[in-house]
């Protein structure tokens, strides 16, 4: 409840300011993108294939250097921060493809999740006990290999691992793409809960309906540009927008 109280109109944690990015040469994947992400909210990013949704996350994480513009986190620029320092800064990331170490135990995966604070053994143990408490489905497998978990459990392990050192922002790239449908709603519920805890959640998703359902604010990207944005309520109700989404869903065959 404490976290909720802090959320006012000025709770912007991360902002993209006129960001351009390119994989090589001058073929820009992001074009003049201005976005903002607030603490305590789920911000959804949707759009057809190749719109640059995942690229937004990769640029934010420093895997891709913007060719122009700035990315500001908590009042200071993130440009030049190496991607392995992002955890330390407070940005967690759950990528689309598995980011687990499948032949290590569940506990070892969590231990590695505490890498930035690895010298503080007591803190590592506390953090691991805390997340295993939050994710009771993982506790029985604590000493088993991560590879033996089901698809859904693996995703939760990744989320748990990202929460170990209490990130201020958590980035999800297609969190339900690789898992069984019965787990998908659980994952979305959890994402909503994270926002209520005060975390700025960024959700890139191919599945438009659940994404809008769980989001507070939504951006639509097309060909690396922002084409629409607004409160998720509007996206849920506005017929015109639903038609628009239907159009590019057809285009992308999604």
């Amino acid at each position, binding site marked *: 409840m404490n976290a909720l109280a802090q959320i006012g109109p000025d709770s912007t944690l991360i902002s993209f300011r006129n960001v351009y990015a390119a*994989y090589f040469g001058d*073929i820009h994947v992001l*074009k003049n993108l201005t976005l903002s992400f607030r603490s305590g909210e789920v911000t959804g990013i949707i759009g057809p294939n190749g719109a640059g949704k995942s690229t937004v996350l990769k640029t934010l994480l420093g895997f891709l250097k913007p060719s122009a513009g700035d990315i500001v986190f908590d009042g200071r620029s993130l440009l030049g921060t190496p991607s392995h320092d992002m955890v330390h800064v407070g940005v967690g990331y759950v990528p689309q493809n598995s980011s687990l170490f499948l032949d290590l135990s569940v506990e070892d995966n969590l231990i590695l999740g505490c890498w930035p604070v690895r010298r503080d053994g007591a803190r590592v143990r506390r953090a691991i006990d805390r997340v295993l408490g939050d994710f009771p489905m993982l506790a029985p497998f604590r000493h088993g290999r991560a590879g033996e978990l089901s698809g859904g459990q693996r995703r939760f392990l990744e989320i748990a691992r990202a929460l170990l050192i209490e990130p201020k922002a958590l980035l999800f790239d297609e969190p339900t793409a690789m898992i069984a449908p019965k787990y998908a709603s659980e994952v979305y519920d959890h994402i909503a809960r994270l926002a209520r805890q005060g975390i700025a959640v960024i959700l890139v998703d191919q599945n438009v309906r659940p994404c809008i359902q769980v989001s507070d604010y939504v951006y639509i990207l097309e*060909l*690396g*540009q922002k*084409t629409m944005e*607004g409160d998720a309520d509007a996206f849920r109700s506005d017929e015109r927008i639903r038609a628009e989404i239907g159009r590019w869903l057809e285009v992308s065959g999604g």
Partner: protein
Amino acid sequence: MSMVMQSAPSAETAPSVRQRAPLFRLHRASVWIWCLTLAGISLIAVSIPAVSAGVSFWFYLFQWIALASALNLMAGMTGYVPFGFAAFFGIGAYAAAVLSQFHHAPTWAALVGATAAGALLAVLFAPTLRLRGVFFSVVSLSLAIVLRSVIVLLPEDVAGGSSGITITGRHDPIRLYYLMVAVSMGAVAIATAISVTPHGLRLKAIGDDLDAAQIIGVNAKGLRLAMWMLSGTIAAVCGALEGLYSSAIDPAAAFNILISTKAIIYAALGGLGTVMGPVVGAVLMTITDELIWTRFPIANLFILGLIVSATVLFFPRGIVGSLLQRHPRFRRWFF
């Protein structure tokens, strides 16, 4: 406050997704120029014995052009680096030597036997093509060592044992030299044919991306096997010619891993996957080798090593490959 802002999509609709660079069409003229260059080289090569006292340097120059080009057929086109390449060279040398010395075969019969032995060995080792990366390299190297040990273990009157075979029969060195020129030009011609025909271009795709190859309908396995057979057989013929030319072979020299590694290095220095690269690399390195070797025997290895390491760091695609990467317009002329 449930307003939705809609920013106007810009007029420019250039696709912003990653695109593959389009394949540059080779000029027909450039293929002709290359063929003429090869013909010119052959002409010079053929006239060497008339003007030069010894052909030894030239013999080995063309041997390395042949070996580097043959290795490139496999490594450059498919991404498989056979560290056991020396096995083919060795089996060719042994087949020729055994036929010549123990069965008194004439030169042509010894060479036919060596070719057959090389092709047979390629078939025998073909199952290793299921492996990938370092697995493939190490297993192929192990097979070369196994083969060498087997030859050492065979009775002396079958394969000469550990001391090798001295060939006492006459094999005209000048004729062997001409044959080596022919083999090397043949190897380069095959590489050229692969690079300028649509079929060959599809083959190259395997080296880049196995999945992509599957999608565009290349029979990856069949083509890989074909390249393996070709490069192995060419190496066996080279080994046979070298064995007859030097008239003495032994297991350590015939199966020397330096044969594999030098072929890899020369091809990589010039540019794996290009037709001209292995030729450029072999010529440059054979000359460098010759110049340094005669003057600084110890420094020779050091400089060879330095060149290799520096090339990998600063020209990772080799001389020809880096040139093409930096100046794509040359793709019409160099390939």
